[in-house]
C-alpha cells in the first residue's frame, strides 16, 4: 500500500466525526438583499463525491467560498474534516483543495512554475514539488505548454492547470466549482477521469455543476439547490428514477418499423422498461432507460428481431427537465442568462451523443 496515502487517511480519520468529511447545518450568507445561501444543510460522506446541482445564481459558488474560508457565513455552521470553517480556518486549509469557478492561477508564471510554487507552499520538498509539477502537467495534457506563461493559455488549458493546482497536494477534501463548464467533450472526460482518480486515492469531493451528466458520472449523491435553498437531495439513482434517467433514441432505417419496434420493446417485458414512444416527425423511437444494462438489452432485443437501425443516441435530461421533474417548476434562471443556459443544453446533448 502506498505509504503516503495511508498517512493522508490516518490524518483524516483522526479529525472525522461520524464519517462525514463535510457537514453543513443551516448555512446562511446574504449579500444585502440577495439571499445567496439561505439555510443550506448538507453532508458529504468521507471518500464520496457529492454533486451540488443548481442553475445560475443558485448559490453554488457562495456555498463553496464559505466552505473554503473565503467568505464568512452569516449564520449556521460548517465543518470540514471536523474543523469549523469560522473557528479553525487554519487547520481547515490544510485539508482542502479548491478549483474555483474562475481560474486562480498566476497568469504571468508558466504552468510549471505555477504548480511548483503551489507545491512549495504546501511544504513539499524541492524535489517532490518538481516531480509532482511534471506529473500533474502530464496528467492534464499540459506538458507541451509547461514553459509558457499561463496568461497565454486557452480557457480550457487554464482550467486544467487550475485543477492540477488544486490536486497537487492530494487534499483530503476537494471542492470543484463547475470544473468542466466551457470544456470540450474530450477534455471533460479527462477531467472526470482525474476526479475519479482523486476519489480512488481517498479524497472526498464536493462538486458543483449545471450538468446532470456530470453529476451522474461522478457523484454518488446529489443536492439540488435553487435560490440558496436545498430543493431535493438523495442518491443519484433515486433522483434519476424521479427524473426519468436517460432517453434512448433509436432511428430505424425504415420509418414503417416505428410501431413494430415499440411493440417489440413493450412486449419484451424487459425489467423496468415501459412507455416507449414514437417521434414520428423525427422518425425516432424514444425509450426511457435508467441504466447501461437496459440500453444494451433494448439494442440487443431489436437486433434479435432483425430491425435495421440507422442510428442510436442517448439523451440526458437537461437541468430544466430535472427541475421540472423535481419541483414541477421551471428553473429560476433569469432571462438575461437564458442564452448561456441554452448553449449549455446544447453542449450537454453533444456530450451525450
Amino acid at each position, binding site marked *: 500500500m502506498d505509504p503516503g496515502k495511508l498517512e493522508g487517511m490516518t490524518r483524516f480519520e483522526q479529525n472525522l466525526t461520524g464519517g462525514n468529511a463535510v457537514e453543513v447545518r443551516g448555512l446562511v450568507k446574504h449579500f444585502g438583499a440577495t439571499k445567496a445561501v439561505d439555510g443550506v444543510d448538507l453532508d458529504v460522506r468521507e471518500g464520496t463525491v457529492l454533486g451540488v446541482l443548481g442553475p445560475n445564481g443558485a448559490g453554488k459558488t457562495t456555498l463553496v467560498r464559505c466552505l473554503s474560508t473565503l467568505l464568512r457565513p452569516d449564520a449556521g455552521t460548517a465543518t470540514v474534516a471536523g474543523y469549523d470553517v469560522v473557528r479553525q480556518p487554519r487547520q481547515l*486549509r490544510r485539508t482542502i483543495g479548491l478549483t474555483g469557478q474562475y481560474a486562480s492561477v498566476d*497568469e504571468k508564471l508558466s504552468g510549471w512554475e505555477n504548480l511548483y510554487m*503551489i507545491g*512549495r507552499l504546501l*511544504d*513539499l520538498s524541492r524535489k517532490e514539488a518538481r516531480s509532482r509539477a511534471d506529473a500533474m502537467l502530464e496528467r492534464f495534457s499540459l506538458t507541451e505548454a509547461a514553459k509558457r506563461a499561463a496568461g497565454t493559455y486557452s480557457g480550457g488549458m487554464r482550467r486544467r492547470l487550475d485543477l492540477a493546482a488544486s490536486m497537487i497536494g492530494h487534499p483530503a477534501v476537494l471542492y470543484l466549482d463547475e470544473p468542466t463548464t466551457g470544456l470540450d467533450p474530450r477534455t471533460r472526460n479527462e477531467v472526470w477521469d482525474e476526479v475519479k482518480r482523486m476519489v480512488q486515492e481517498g479524497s472526498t469531493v464536493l462538486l458543483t455543476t449545471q450538468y446532470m451528466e456530470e453529476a451522474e458520472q461522478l457523484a454518488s449523491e446529489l443536492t439540488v439547490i435553487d435560490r440558496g435553498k436545498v430543493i431535493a437531495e438523495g442518491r443519484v439513482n433515486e433522483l434519476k428514477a424521479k427524473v426519468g434517467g436517460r432517453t434512448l433514441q433509436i432511428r430505424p432505417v425504415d420509418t414503417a418499423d416505428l410501431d413494430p419496434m415499440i411493440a417489440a420493446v413493450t412486449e419484451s417485458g424487459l425489467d423496468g422498461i415501459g412507455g416507449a414512444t414514437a417521434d414520428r416527425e423525427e422518425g425516432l423511437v424514444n425509450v426511457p432507460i435508467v441504466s447501461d444494462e437496459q440500453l444494451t438489452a433494448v439494442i440487443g432485443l431489436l437486433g434479435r428481431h432483425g430491425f435495421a437501425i440507422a442510428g442510436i443516441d442517448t439523451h440526458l435530461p437537461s437541468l430544466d427537465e430535472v427541475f421540472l421533474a423535481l419541483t414541477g417548476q421551471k428553473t429560476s434562471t433569469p432571462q438575461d442568462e437564458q442564452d448561456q443556459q441554452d448553449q449549455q443544453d446544447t453542449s450537454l446533448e453533444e456530450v451525450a451523443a
Partner: protein
Amino acid sequence: MSATTVKPAALPAEGRIGLRANLRHISALVRRNALQIKQDPESMFDAVMMPIIFTLLFVYVFGGAVAGGQQAYVNYFVPGMMAMGGLNIAMSVGTGVNDDFNKGVMDRFRTMPIARSSVLIAKLIVETGRMLVSTVILLTVGFILGFDLKTDPLQLLAAVGLALVFGSSLTWIFMWLGLSLKTPQAVQGMGFLVIMPLQFGSSIFAKPDSMPGWLQTFTDYNPLSRLADAARALTQGEGAIAAPTLTVLLWALGITVVTAPLAVRKFRDKT
C-alpha cells in the same frame, strides 16, 4: 507517484505555521514575484529610468540655479535622491498590489495553509530589491556626473541601507493603501497627493534655508528631509550622522508597526 499530503512535521496541532515553513513559503512567493518581473521586464522601467532621468534633469536644469554649479549640486542631489527613490518605488507597489490582489490567484493563496502575511512580506522583499537596483543605478549615474564620495564606502553602504529600511517601511503604507482602495488609479491619485508635498517640502532638492518659516517647520519634521540629511552626512561628511539616522529609524519603525498589521488585516479580510 506518491500520494503524500503534507509532511507531518509541518502539521502542528493548532494549525500555526512554523518559522521554517514560513520562510519556505516566503521564498516560494519571492520567486513568484521575481519571475513576474522576468516575464514582464517593463515593470522594472520605473526603477531603472527614474534615477537616470531625474538626476540628469535636476542636475542640468536646476543645478546652476539652486547650487550655483552642476558639480556642487550633484553632491547635494544624489544623497537627496537616495531618499526619494524608495518613496517612488513604494508608490508603484501600491498600484501593483491593487492590481495583483484583485486577481484570482490570491483566492488560491487565501485557501492555502500559509500565513497571510507571507504574501505581503514576499512582495516587500522583492520591492526592496528593486529599490536597491534603483539606488545602484542612481549612484552610477551620480559618479559619472562627478559625484564625490567624501567619506568611505562603508558609510555609503550605511546610507544605502538606511534608505532601504525607510523605503520598505513606506512600502507597507502603500500596500495598505493598495489593498484598501478600489482601483489602481485611486491608489495613484492618493499617492501623488501624499508624495508631492513630502517630496518637495523637504531638503531633497533644495536647502530649506530659503523657504518661508512655516515650510521650514514642515521640512524639519518631514522624515524625508532627515533621511536626505543623514545620507548627506554619510556621503559628504557634513553635519551630524547620529541624530538624523536615529530619527529615520524611529520613523521607519513607527510606520511599520502601525501599517504592517493594517495591511495584513486588510489582505486577510478582503473577499
